[in-house]
């Protein structure tokens, strides 16, 4: 369908630094990276991490202090927002209060000088795509938040921009509506084939919808990878803790016969990734740990004896906190109507060494 190669860059950052007046550290300071044509790209990070700044730089609302930004081959660093072929879905939706839904969606087409007939047709199409055709004549204050959100979306894609920027567009919606909208977004992106750049602090949204995710913190990109790699192979402590639920385990590494061996709570196992002697940090996901009531050891797994200190019943599963010597582990254990683990029960916590992730920091 698309003649362009799948990895053709549509947006490229080259050593971009943005500093706000009066701030000690730059809001954004990134080396080179690209967003590819047609992909659903997420920028994920806590508030104040620089993710919105990145978006505003792409849209043209902010100007980089140094470095260049490209759309395709064109350097757009100095191009004003209204000459960029990019549209934004604002966090506040920013619907024009004095225009109806229809007029709001028609706005970018009007600015582009599209003829009235054609305009009407495309506005109707766009409103249908977000299931808002029945509310075309209402004003923004007459519809609900979710409906406003959908119209803001329609307004952003009706002009068929090269890239659609979405700034936490779902943050004002309730859980049900948010899940509905996630499906709408993914569906839409497939249908219209526009590149989506999606900014969010919600890891669930980022992982479920994106083809690639950039995790940012402190103005820097911490990791840029596919959702599953981000989830299973976080390269830093920050990413591991920000995404999903991970135990942070301190281990001691020692070389024996040239093989690095890690010691955790007295148990030794090979840790091929380790590069030096001494204490290191390991990450193990909650779901990679198995808690069994005493005795039986499983093959190829490391088992640490411990004592249950806390059990949280979550419905489909239990979150079990186990104390092994001086460290605490949290694991997911299957929940049963009765016969769950009890407080103070002696257990074994076991895991595969290959599920451990070694952090650089």
């Amino acid at each position, binding site marked *: 369908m698309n003649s362009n190669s799948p990895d053709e860059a549509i947006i490229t950052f080259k050593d971009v630094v943005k500093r706000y007046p009066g701030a000690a550290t730059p809001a954004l300071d990134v080396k080179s990276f690209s967003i590819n044509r047609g992909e659903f790209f997420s920028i994920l990070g806590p508030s104040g991490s620089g993710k919105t700044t990145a978006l505003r730089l792409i*849209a043209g*609302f902010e100007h980089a202090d140094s470095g260049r930004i490209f759309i395709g081959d064109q350097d757009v660093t100095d191009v004003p927002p209204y000459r960029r072929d990019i549209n934004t879905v604002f966090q506040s939706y*920013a619907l024009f209060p004095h225009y109806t839904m229809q007029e709001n969606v028609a706005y970018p087409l009007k600015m582009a000088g599209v003829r009235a007939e054609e305009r009407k047709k495309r506005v109707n199409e766009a409103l249908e795509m977000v299931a808002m055709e029945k509310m075309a004549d209402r004003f923004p204050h007459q519809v609900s938040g979710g409906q406003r959100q959908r119209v803001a979306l329609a307004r952003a894609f009706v002009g068929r921009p090269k890239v659609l920027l979405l700034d936490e567009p779902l943050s004002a919606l309730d859980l049900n509506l948010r899940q509905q909208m996630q499906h709408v977004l993914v569906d839409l992106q497939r249908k219209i084939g526009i590149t989506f750049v999606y900014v969010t602090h919600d890891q669930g949204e980022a992982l479920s919808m994106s083809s690639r995710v950039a995790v940012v913190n402190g103005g820097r990109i911490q990791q840029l990878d596919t959702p599953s790699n981000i989830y299973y192979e976080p390269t830093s402590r920050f990413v591991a803790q920000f995404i999903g639920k991970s135990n942070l385990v301190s281990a001691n590494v020692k070389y024996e016969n040239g093989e690095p061996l890690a010691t955790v709570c007295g148990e030794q196992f090979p840790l091929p990734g380790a590069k030096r002697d001494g204490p290191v940090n390991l990450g193990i996901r909650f779901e990679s740990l198995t808690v069994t009531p005493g005795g039986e050891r499983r093959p190829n797994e490391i088992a640490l004896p411990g004592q249950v200190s806390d059990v949280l019943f979550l419905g489909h599963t239990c979150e079990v906190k186990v104390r092994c010597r001086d460290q605490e582990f949290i694991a997911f254990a299957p929940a049963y109507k009765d016969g769950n683990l009890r407080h103070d029960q002696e257990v074994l916590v076991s895991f595969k060494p290959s599920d451990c992730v070694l952090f650089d920091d």
Partner: protein
Amino acid sequence: MTNAVLAAPIESPRRVGLFRPGTLLPQVPMFVWLAILVLLPNVLLIGVSFLKSVGGNVVFDPTIENYARAFQSSGVWWLLLRTIAVAALSTTIAAVIAYPMAYYAARILQRGRFMALLLVIIPLWISLLMRIFAWRVILGEKGVLNTFLLQMGFISQPSSAFLYNSVAVFLTFVYVAIPFIFIAVYSAIERIPQDLVEAANDCGASRWKSFQTVIWPLSKPGLAIGLSLAFLMAVGDYITPSMVGGLNGTMLGMVIASQFGIAGNWPYGSALAVILLVAVSIVLLLVFRFSRVPGILVGEGGGGSAVRAKPMSFAGKLKAYGAFLLFCLPYAFLYAPLILIALFSFNTATVQVLPLEGLTLHWYQEVLNNAALLAALNRSLLVGLCVLAISVIAGTGFAILFAYGKVAGAKWLESLLTLPVAIPGVVLGITLVLVFQLLSVPVGIWRLVLGHSTFVMPVVMMTVLARLRRLDPALVEASSDLGARYGSTLWNVILPLARSSIIGGALLGFTLSVDEVVVSQFLTGTQPTLPVWVWNQMRFGFTPSVNAIFVCIGLLSIVLTLIARQFLETNKKAA
């Protein structure tokens, strides 16, 4: 039917009652106020306009003679037309100056926005009379303008062309209107969230296009309010025309006022007032019709100027400096008369001509020895404080009633209570004379206090009501949920939160009362307030002490405002 359903907002804010359900008692004072101070005066005006005048006395003998006389007189038509035209045109010119100024201050100025606003407001505190008088000093035959032109060699002898004509009236109206329009437009533009402008840019609208499609439509209602206020002030003003207008600058307001003074024909004056009122209403209706914008700007705050996106080129910088200079120009226009007042207050000569003769503090000393002036000042302050007390209590009370009392037809009642603000000064003065005469309120302080309250109370009420409407309705629910009775919710939750708006409204109202001259002239009798006293001085022998006292009042009000602002700021930080 379906349309009505569609138009209903999805999330209409709930208002929990602050009052015991079912009791109408709290509404009684509001209806009494409405009946006596708003409806009765206007009913009387219309009533009297259908009566006869015999030898200066009103006789009960229904007739349409007064209207017939007015309609047959080409002079009245001509005067009405000119009055409306001069007021409308001067207001429009003022808007052409004030709108770009307000836009610049609210959107482009990066720093010093409060100063820009304050500098426009300050002239409003210097008595209207003084500012008008200063224009006479500038435009007169021995005035500043003539002196300047003579010295530059543009003219060979002093020209009388500047003063005592419509142009002088016109110029003075423009001068008086600029601050009102600026404030109204500034607050409208400042409220427009920046992300709407960004969204427009994002959709491909250039700067000019985004102004045209976003800023302009959303600021139109604010502009309409500013235009209406300025228009009302001009149309109901008979002071300015008689000071700078001369014979050629006569306006309808002067004729109406004279029917209640020298001419002594109240019914005819009332008929003229009704005619003026109808004409003004038509103009205002048109203004609001053209400024109507569908939709509601939801959410507050936002605003703010565009962040300068990228470093500017040399040409860009040049343009920016040019724009800044243009922005500063109207300030020179606003301050020239004020500076003259200050200069003449130190001048040894009693005649107000340039160049200054010599410096003296004599006039400041004389203020302290001028018993009549001090008595007038005292009276003004006394009236102002009484008006303040009545207006704050009534205005705050009515605002709370409308916000939380579930009053039937609240919208209509609110508009009716604010009606006196929308009546030209000269007409309001007449209606009040009529009602006080009927109820035999003694001439003097009481008439002034009640009369001023009719237009100061709505100012306080609207300020407080605007604040209450923006409060989270859940606060009252939370308070009663936590066990507070009606009274303690009022005392512990509503009043503290409304405090800054009450103070703001009160300050504004106090200034309005102390500076009022058009309405006061009708109510004051033999014991004048300060502005009325000054007005008499200007006609029958002027002393530069008046300059001195207004310099003092001006400085005092600036200091007080700065202190009040400091106080409110610290309060905000503490909260």
